[in-house]
């Protein structure tokens, strides 16, 4: 799978404060990568560096395989679109004029496609209304349209649903899914709204204190969040053969702990195991939400 963005031990220091600390992320083509982290975790700093607004203190990153230390990095950015914190729109201009401005900036040969873009983001009927009079959701959608003007294949959205009402959140979510499915645009989306991200992301990167503490696909994550049994045993290896033979979804965590995914009757399950001479020392049920998973992952927050 082609990697669109990769960072290698990226570091950013502001005087004595480390905003990014050996950050490593990998974004594959065609994915929606949800960058999760609480406020101040380093999400926006990472995005600013990728977009060229700031330089890393140490480490490097590559976009489409081009290193940030190469002079070609500026040119390769023409393949991406971004909204960093707030959308870049001229508030005294209409939605159409903002797009004309962007078309000229990216060097589009004609203004064809502007109407289609406005339609895509649901702003076709805004006419002469200036962007300063738009709602927050409309501004975000216009920002996305501007970011799409150059037909990018990589879109970076920094906190795109901040401050939006529920309707606005749904509109942005549907738009992101549409862009990913219909236009095959790879999307990096940062947010601290876990619930929202869980509805669209195909991959996750959990950022805490400037470090990526876990990268995981949504498939793996769903598996981890499934209803599961945490089984404590003397020797995990003895159980593997049984689970394989009986098509039981499991994961050996260490020599004495196995996670068994799915819903089982606890008494029957233990009884079946003991019939096969597999003795369980302890067993408990657990169901995890993304929120719990995240909290467990960052622990007490002392990852610095």
């Amino acid at each position, binding site marked *: 799978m082609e990697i669109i963005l990769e960072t290698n031990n990226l570091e950013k220091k502001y005087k004595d404060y480390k905003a990014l600390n050996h950050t490593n992320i990998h974004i594959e083509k065609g994915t929606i990568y949800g960058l999760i982290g609480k406020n101040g975790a380093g999400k926006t700093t990472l995005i*600013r560096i990728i*977009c*060229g*607004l*700031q*330089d890393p203190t140490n480490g490097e990153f590559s976009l489409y395989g081009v290193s940030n230390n190469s002079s070609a990095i*500026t*040119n*390769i*950015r*023409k393949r*991406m*679109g*971004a909204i*960093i*914190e*707030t*959308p*870049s*729109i*001229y*508030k*005294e*201009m209409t939605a159409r*004029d903002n797009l*004309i*401005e*962007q078309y*000229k*900036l*990216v*060097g589009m040969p004609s203004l064809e496609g502007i109407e289609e873009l406005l339609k895509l983001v649901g702003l076709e009927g805004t006419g002469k209304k200036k962007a300063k009079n738009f709602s927050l959701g409309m501004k975000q959608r216009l920002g996305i349209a*501007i970011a799409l003007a*150059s037909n990018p294949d990589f879109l*970076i959205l920094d906190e795109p649903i901040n401050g939006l009402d529920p309707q606005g959140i749904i509109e942005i979510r549907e738009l992101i899914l549409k862009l990913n499915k219909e236009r095959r645009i790879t999307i990096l989306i940062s947010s601290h709204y876990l619930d929202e991200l869980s509805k669209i992301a195909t991959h996750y990167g959990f950022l805490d204190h400037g470090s990526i503490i876990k990268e995981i696909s949504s498939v793996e994550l769903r598996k981890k969040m499934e209803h599961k049994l945490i089984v404590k045993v003397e020797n995990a290896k003895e159980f593997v053969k049984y689970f394989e033979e009986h098509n039981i979804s499991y994961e050996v965590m260490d020599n004495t702990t196995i996670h068994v995914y799915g819903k089982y009757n606890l008494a029957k399950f233990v009884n079946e195991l003991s019939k096969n001479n597999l003795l369980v020392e302890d067993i408990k049920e657990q169901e995890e939400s993304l929120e719990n998973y995240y909290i467990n992952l960052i622990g007490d927050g002392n990852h610095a």
Partner: protein
Amino acid sequence: MLRLFNAGFTRLCKNKLFWLLTLFSACLAIFMIYTQYGNMKNYGDTIEVEQLMLNYSTMIGIVMAIFTSLFLGVEYSDGGVRNKISIGHKRIHIYVSNLIIVTITSIFSYILFFIVVAIIGIPLFGTITIAISKLLMLLGCIFITIIAYSSIITFFAMLISNKTITAICCLLLAFGMTTTALVCFNKLEAPKTIQEAILLEGETKIKEVPNPKYPSEEKRKVYQTLLDVNPAGQMFQLVGKTVTNLNILPIYSLGIIVVFTGTGLVLFKKKELK
């Protein structure tokens, strides 16, 4: 960089501030002609039309400070700069294109003023009384000084990310330069001697005495240099046609352009943007 110019001029044409500046330039020309025509009719003053044509240059610095700081300030407040960088424009191109756009706008504003004065003023006050070559030289110097002004104001507008602070700084700077130029100009204009009335044997006699406020030769050199280096000072000298050496002013202006644009480019390249 052509894309940046294309987009920049498109934004300029749709910018209310630009049209206000255009209107201001034309109205100022008409207002000056109107007041001078009144002076000619009522008091029999002789009006030199070329003087009217040059007059705008004394205030263009302040006009440019307002226009440039607000026009470029929007680049930060509305996210224009970060958008341009994130879609792959080089910082050096962004800086230079903005400098060129505001310079061309300022020169356009001056030319518009000049044309309105020429079209209405020449039939009213008569033709230009100085040699055309001299007028063109003065205009050339004014345009170079406008570029120097632009490079100073652009420097601040591109390095300060806050639109309000940019506007305040640029205005204070423009007023500061104008005030400094006026102070220097007045010091240099002080007469060498003044008349003093003395009572001698019951009679009052007028005696020429050295002016204590007349600056020493060394101080005169300092004031003259300050006047020559300062774009506002250059404008006062060009309008008053008091320039001792017309060739030196463009050299000072070029120095300002090189220093401010060079430093601005280096600092803007390193600037951490949000």
